[in-house]
């Protein structure tokens, strides 16, 4: 019972840092303990305990996103070996819906953070650009379940999409100009995301203000 005080202080701190309510934090903490097997940290192997996740074609990218130093705000590249509860909450907080009551600037900031999370998923070598290889990699993973699609089809889809992206960002290219890759700013342009407040359902996985 005596430990209850310091625990609630911690909860309040986490509330401030990540924006979840104390109920949500407790619920996520229970889930964290379930995933980690009552250990204080989670490693990549712990995500093997989620059977539903096996269905997901980009499972490895999602798990990787949890350990990505850029998402954890601990650096500009590389992967952490294990994450604690606070890191877990940090990653989860990217999926909270945008609060309608905030001012325009903050809303834009929130959006950018979410899009940066997705950008990191594509950009696996952390060089700040999505190269053709990385793009192909994502498309192949998404289409990998279907045995009827050959690798060639997946590649050509990726190449086509990449060319379109290039034309949007750089305009008409010279014949021997090499397109180095999609930067984050290009990413914002190409997607032309209209993650408006109303249709924020796509990235709004949890209830509660941003």
């Amino acid at each position, binding site marked *: *019972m005596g430990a209850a005080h310091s625990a609630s202080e911690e909860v309040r701190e986490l509330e401030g840092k990540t924006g979840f309510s104390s*109920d*949500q934090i*407790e*619920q*996520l903490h229970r*889930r964290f303990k*379930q*995933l980690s097997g009552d250990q204080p940290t989670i490693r990549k192997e712990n*995500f*093997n*305990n*989620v*059977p*539903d*996740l*096996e*269905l*997901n*074609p*980009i*499972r490895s990218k*999602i798990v990787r996103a949890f350990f990505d130093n850029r998402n954890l705000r601990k650096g500009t590249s590389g992967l952490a070996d294990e994450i604690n509860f606070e890191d877990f909450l940090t990653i*989860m907080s990217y*999926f909270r*819906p945008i609060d309608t009551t905030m001012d325009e600037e903050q809303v834009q900031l929130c959006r950018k953070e979410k899009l940066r999370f*997705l950008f990191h*998923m*594509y950009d696996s070598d952390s060089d700040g650009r999505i190269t053709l290889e990385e793009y192909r990699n*994502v*498309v192949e993973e*998404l*289409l*990998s*379940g*279907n*045995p009827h*699609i050959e690798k060639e*089809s997946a590649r050509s*889809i*990726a190449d*086509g*999409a990449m060319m379109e*992206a290039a034309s949007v960002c750089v305009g008409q290219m010279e014949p021997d100009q090499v397109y180095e890759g999609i930067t984050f700013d290009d*990413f914002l342009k*190409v*997607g*032309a*995301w*209209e*993650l*408006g407040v109303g*249709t924020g*359902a*796509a*990235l*709004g*996985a*949890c*209830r509660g203000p941003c």
Partner: protein
Amino acid sequence: MFLLLPFDSLIVSLLGISLTVLFTLLLVFIIVPAVFGVSFGIRKLYMKTLLKIFAWATLRMERGAKEKNHQLYKPYTNGIIAKDPTSLEEEIKEIRRSGSSKALDNTPEFELSDIFYFCRKGMETIMDDEVTKRFSAEELESWNLLSRTNYNFQYISLRLTVLWGLGVLIRYCLLLPLRIALAFTGISLLVVGTTMVGYLPNGRFKEFLSKHVHLMCYRICVRALTAIITYHDRKNRPRNGGICVANHTSPIDVIILASDGYYAMVGQVHGGLMGVIQRAMVKACPHVWFERSEVKDRHLVARRLTEHVQDKSKLPILIFPEGTCINNTSVMMFKKGSFEIGATVYPVAIKYDPQFGDAFWNSSKYGMVTYLLRMMTSWAIVCSVWYLPPMTRQAEEDAVQFANRVKSAIARQGGLVDLLWDGGLKREKVKDTFKEEQQKLYSKMIVGNHEDRSRS
């Protein structure tokens, strides 16, 4: 020390008297009714009293919590995910529509935004997945004075704590020894009785005796756990030459079903005490025990079961097709083996009332002995058993469809959730065939349209 001598003999004689009294009470009120299958109604009275106490305790807690302005009932587990039950195609269209400012010609191609959908789905399952939920014990909404179910309720008042302490005393010092004595009696009677019956020549008399010996011992075991069972639709009870199929929550299921009917058991041969019991039982009437090596051979298993079922003089087989213990909130995939045999299937639904004691055996958390101890120190085990009308396999069905039909009937009757998932997931990983479904759906969407385009 010498001064204690007169007190010593007093204590000894007191002990002797109380033991005798205890045993007589035991005999009269519990064992004799068990032998004859009568009931004094003591357990029902006990259950009613307990319910009243629990209701009072919960009210007390609610009042106490309101006084302290403390939230008592935590939000429903599903509260954190804003679930939107739309299909994959609709969601991806929605994402693209809200995204692209290009003139939409309605032929979906790969878009950067497509990754959203899968990302979000992945996050949702990390936060809460359907399968893992089934393998941890059910959470209660009121407190039943057992500290092991006390997740949300904290210290409220002195009176409640005293009541809880009294409960602990009663359960561990009064009920537990009583139950252990009963269990001991029941099991030894079973072993001795069936061995003795085994010496008789085969015939009607032997069958009659063996049935009653089995029944008697199961009834004693039921009282050893203070199980209060309500049987519904007893006219549908399994008959010879059939297979009885039920959902599985704990090893106690066997005792519960077998105390109301005559069954032939199916299982693996164990060592130790279980082995002794198994060997004794099989002397009195034919049960189907498999050696460990035989269990792997599915054809051998199927053949032996078929042989047993075709002999109309043999008792109906009791099988739990889920293969493992589930926490009694849902019914998981039935293994098709028992449904291929072609006998009449008698489904039975078992639903435990978690208020009095959680009967779920989490075999990864507790061993058998710990589990039995927990059962014997709960207040009681209250459950309902429904005998469903018999089902046979139709001509157009295959074994899997038949199994699913039986499963839905059981789930519906027991008020449990009908899940497609395999109970074996408690221990193993998902089969690859499931993984491919979502990916197939998505890729069909993209490539199908890509091909249309390149053709046009």
